[in-house]
């Protein structure tokens, strides 16, 4: 794989650090008026999610990581592995619980998601910002109560539990913001 020199570092670059694929979140040029230059990089470990800062000398180089974000369709899960398909090539990949992470709460069959592949292996899954999921369980609301205020828990078809207004009923289709895991509105 190619090497990048620290003066080529850019936000978003994917590199290998201590054996793990990492993404550069922020790159800063550091140089005192008298003295050598450094490049200070905020990194996110794409396997563990850990974020930290490392400082490089100006001529150090790092190995690039074969990391690609691909749009894929969610097929199903068998409890251990979650299966996705590339709609263009029909190739399938299987991601484990670790790779799927929080996204498991929001996956609905045939939804398009972004799967991050490292050496063609899925290491993380990012759901779309908004998903539409059906309420499978919630206490009955007060009929005609469309006023603000007051909320109750509702279980969605994926098993995720979100807080919803009192007027939401079983069977309602909800729009959920997956970035904050919250109810936005009814979808139908």
């Amino acid at each position, binding site marked *: 794989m190619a090497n990048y020199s620290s*003066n080529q570092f850019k936000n978003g670059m994917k590199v290998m650090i201590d054996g793990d694929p990492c993404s550069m979140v922020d790159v*800063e*040029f*550091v*140089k*005192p*008026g*008298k*003295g*050598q*230059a*450094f490049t*200070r990089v905020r990194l996110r470990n794409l396997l563990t999610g850990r974020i*930290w*800062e*490392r*400082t*490089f*000398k*100006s001529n*150090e180089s790092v190995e690039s990581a074969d990391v690609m974000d691909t749009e894929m369709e969610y097929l199903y899960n068998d409890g251990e592995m979650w299966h996705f398909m590339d709609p263009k090539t029909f190739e399938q990949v299987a991601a484990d619980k670790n790779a799927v992470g929080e996204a498991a709460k929001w996956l609905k069959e045939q939804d398009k998601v972004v799967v991050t592949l490292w050496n063609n292996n899925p290491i993380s899954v990012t759901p779309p910002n908004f998903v539409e999921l059906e309420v499978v369980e919630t206490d009955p609301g007060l009929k005609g109560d469309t006023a603000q205020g007051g909320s109750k828990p509702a279980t969605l078809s994926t098993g995720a539990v979100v807080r919803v207004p009192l007027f939401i009923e079983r069977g309602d289709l909800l729009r959920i913001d997956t970035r904050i895991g919250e109810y936005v509105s009814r979808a139908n």
Partner: protein
Amino acid sequence: MQDAPWRPNAPLPNLRARARIVAQIRRFFAERNVLEVETPVLSHCAVSDPFIDSLEVEFGFHPGRVDERLYLQSSPEYAMKRLLAAGSGDIYQLAKVFRNGEAGRRHNPEFTLLEWYRLGFDDRQLMAEVEALLRTVMPGVTVRYLSYAQLFESELGLDPHRASLEQLRAACREWVDAPFADDDRATWLNLLMSHRLEPQLRGAVFVHSYPASMAALARRREDEQGRPVAARFELFVDGVELANGYHELTDAAEQARRLDADQRQRAALGLPQRPLERRLVSALRAGLPDCAGVALGVDRLVMLALGGEGLDQVISFLHPRA
């Protein structure tokens, strides 16, 4: 067809504020009878500092020919000292300077340095004058003075003058993930400064009395604890390095030794060796008057005065848009 990005990146009100600040600077020096000078941006010689890379320019007497290689100045210091040795008296310059490869939120390869020299001043007197200029542009700023040793001792419990290389490296690695090797004390001291100490320096802070090893061309003296310190100071405002000043060493032989030592270090680091400015040595031999000098980043000064965080707000066209 899409239009090319022709607009300035700095907002026009900021450019107006910048002009007012530059006018204030000129008034400040006019009041003190300091002469404004202009020295060449283009020189046959390059700075010797191994950590500053000069931009190279091809000069030809006919289009397409290359008859000479010249360098864009990274600081007006060499030429201004030649003027001082020629009897100019107190001088200042608002100089455009160039440093290859230096780009970031607070670095532009082309930037403006305010550099001035005062005969008969030592570093302490010059610091007081820098403070006066700062208060003109940023009234109400709080100003503190700290020695390099006080800063390291109070924040890190470390004596920057006497700590061993290993102690400095270990202390630095407590705060900075920098797994590379380096045998230069200055590397670890500078990393501690930039990563750990500078961000905590709120308001204006003058750091003075640097380790002698970090200011080869400043006069030397001993501090209250008998440690050899350099008559060098730096000004930080809200954690941003703004100015660097010295009570200048005037010894021609020492200057010549420094030029040669820098050239050897360049060779050792695999860096280009460019023509050294020997005319500076000749000027010093003729006699540089006792003086103190300081360089201050004008773009950063304007940025700080306007409460901004980046040079893109105060430079009309940054490097990518130039």
